[in-house]
């Protein structure tokens, strides 16, 4: 959506009646300072109107209810929240990964007998996945968590998985776990990118060495004003610039049943 389209919607957005188009407006505002200022002014005007209502007195017990509910949410025993479908899939994926090792499982490959050191080698990445999922659970209902299976586009070695969280309440973030890549001369550094449909790229990270299973884990938490919406294509390039793994982020990842 361009500036003209957004500005036509801004009055309704400020008045809280933009409906489903509000998300598109928010995405534009995240990258357009001029429209953001216009939006801020209109929101300020609209908020003024809220004080035009004849004041009413809340019941005496409401303050205690509010304090208890916020403290419960902020404390060590947060109020249980029902995870969304996408998040449930992520949790399931995380559990599966935790059982028998990362990228190979998501890529549907028969990885054979997994050595203990390989499991250990993935542990850091899996812990990172878990932390991300926990972080997303604290965010509001608009949080989107998505996964990607990464495979070689030309049948080469290696596999991997990626997860991205797009949320209005916490900074957007992404993590990529790989395994089975080559370490021959010239392939370093590996770099991981997210791309949108317009060809814009966001770098997730760089790997200059591999773990014992031939993999690495990189992650990135974006800045406050950055947005991962639309960045669904995951690319892993080697030091020569060749794409060695790729995949598409989606909330509907089907997980293959691990071999017994």
């Amino acid at each position, binding site marked *: 959506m361009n500036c003209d389209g957004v500005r*036509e919607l*801004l*009055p*309704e957005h*400020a*008045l*809280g*009646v*933009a*409906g489903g188009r509000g998300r598109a407006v928010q995405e534009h505002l995240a990258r357009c300072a001029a429209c953001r200022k216009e939006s*801020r*002014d*209109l*929101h*300020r*005007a*609209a*908020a*003024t*109107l*809220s*004080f*035009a*209502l*004849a*004041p*009413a*007195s*809340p*019941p005496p017990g*409401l*303050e205690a*209810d*509010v*304090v208890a*509910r*916020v*403290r419960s*949410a*902020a*404390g060590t025993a947060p109020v249980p929240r029902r995870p969304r479908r996408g998040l449930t899939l992520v949790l399931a994926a995380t559990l599966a990964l935790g059982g028998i090792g990362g990228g190979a499982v998501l890529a549907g490959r028969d990885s054979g007998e997994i050595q203990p050191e390989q499991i250990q080698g993935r542990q850091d990445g899996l812990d990172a996945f878990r932390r991300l999922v926990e972080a997303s659970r*604290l*965010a*509001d209902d608009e949080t989107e968590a998505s996964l990607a299976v990464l495979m070689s586009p030309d049948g080469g070695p290696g596999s991997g998985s990626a997860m991205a969280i797009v949320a*209005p*309440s*916490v900074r957007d973030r992404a993590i990529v776990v790989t395994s089975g890549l080559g370490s021959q001369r010239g392939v370093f550094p590996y770099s991981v990118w997210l791309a949108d449909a317009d060809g814009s790229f966001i770098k997730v990270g760089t790997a200059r060495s591999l773990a014992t299973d031939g993999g690495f884990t990189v992650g990135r938490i974006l800045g*406050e004003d950055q947005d991962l919406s639309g960045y669904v294509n995951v690319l892993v390039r080697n030091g020569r610039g060749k794409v060695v793994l790729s995949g598409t982020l989606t909330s509907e990842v089907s997980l293959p049943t691990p071999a017994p």
Partner: protein
Amino acid sequence: MGQAAFGAQAVYRKEHHVQAHEGPLLPGEELALMQGLMAGEDAAIRALYARFGRPVYTMGLRLLGTRESAEELTQDVFLTAWRKAARFDPARGRLSTWLMTIAHNLAVDRLRRDTGVSRPKLVLVDQVPEAPGVDEEALVIEHDEALRAIASLSDAEKRLIARTYFRGMTAREISEADGIPLGTVKTRLRSALIKVRRANDAKEAP
């Protein structure tokens, strides 16, 4: 809530070594309050409630019509504020704007979800002879701003604002109900909001 509200703010200022002063919170105080909210600090939550509990509850009662709905909305607003507290930036606007936008969005979501429910008669502050218990200075200032804003609108614009902001009707719904072009409704909405904004810009000018 009047004196109690003022007391909670004073306690919070004392506990956080903020120099005592009357009137609205300063930007630095707003940020400190939100950081306290994020951490789930009792004093911060109470100070925030003391400042905004009444307007948020008012929003719920006047728009949704029942005490139960208003209480539920109030709890949801403060919980949402806690979840989104990290996004509050005093450089981008006042805390009152931020919090009342959350309150309004949640209220309108419910209004539009609960179709068919009878709505209460809208009662604006200038329609009651004396606002009972409104003795907090910050609230008085905001009521003054609201009255100034409403007074700057024509009757048609007041009606338009009431149907959107207080009743949750979209521009398209108004266009279809009144048989006027959608573009005209949008233009009038924008014009009305600009008038509201200018009414208070003029007040702030020297």
